[in-house]
């Protein structure tokens, strides 16, 4: 899989979550995603960005336009150096939340994306990568 272009944005404030939504929208539009696909991607990004800010204590989003077998996609990597997730399976369950949320962030983002992977260990931070193909 080749990376055509990429960029990294910080996630350290409330406003950054809004910026993340706008950036992801812009990039999704530039690849030619349908409106529904754009919305799914932006919504997933919003969930994950919030997780990064609140649970990860801040981190980054790296956007990348990826190419695989002449298909183009948008890959988003949310990374933080926060406390990490002790039980990933539990975290992926609908409704599970350690905060005040609805517990849909991680599981919802997975449902909204075509590719989803998560690496996290207590003390080693968290890294979530999602992608959608055109």
């Amino acid at each position, binding site marked *: 899989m080749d990376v055509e272009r990429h960029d990294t944005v910080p996630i350290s404030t409330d406003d950054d979550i809004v910026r993340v939504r706008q950036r992801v929208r812009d990039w999704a539009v530039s690849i030619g995603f349908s409106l*529904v696909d*754009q*919305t799914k991607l932006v919504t997933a990004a*919003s969930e994950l960005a*919030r997780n990064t800010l609140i649970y990860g204590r801040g981190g980054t989003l790296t956007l990348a336009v990826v190419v695989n077998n002449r298909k183009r996609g948008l890959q988003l990597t949310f990374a933080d150096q926060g406390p990490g997730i002790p039980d990933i399976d539990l975290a992926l369950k609908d409704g599970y939340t350690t905060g005040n*949320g*609805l517990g*849909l*962030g991680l*599981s919802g983002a997975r449902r909204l994306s075509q590719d989803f992977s998560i690496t996290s260990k207590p003390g080693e931070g968290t890294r979530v990568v999602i992608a959608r193909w055109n």
Partner: protein
Amino acid sequence: MERIPILKMGDSLLVSIQVDMHDRLAMTLQDDLTAKIVATRAKGVLIDISSLEVVDSFIGRMLANIAAMARVLDAKTVVVGMRPAVAITLVELGLSLSGVRTALNVEKGMLLIRSDGDEGDEGGRRAT
């Protein structure tokens, strides 16, 4: 800090969310609305989200909270103008917005607020 304007329409309150809100702004709206329902003794709250291109679980929870608090204060909440792409995404996300009534537009929303029963078929539906 900017605030989302809340208008009074008869004995109802009308909020039109036109910006991509950051989380703090959403919480402020929640607080402002609750305060205003009490202050004006409003019987209905109409939230117009026709300008929103994205509704994530945070905004979803905000809407559900507003509806719950309004109910406690004896007011009906109706969310109107949800875009198809948003609706499709919310279904995929698994967000049911239970307890939140919805209608296609402001006009139908007002009909729903004024109707006597819990669900007015002419106006709209309860989201569950």
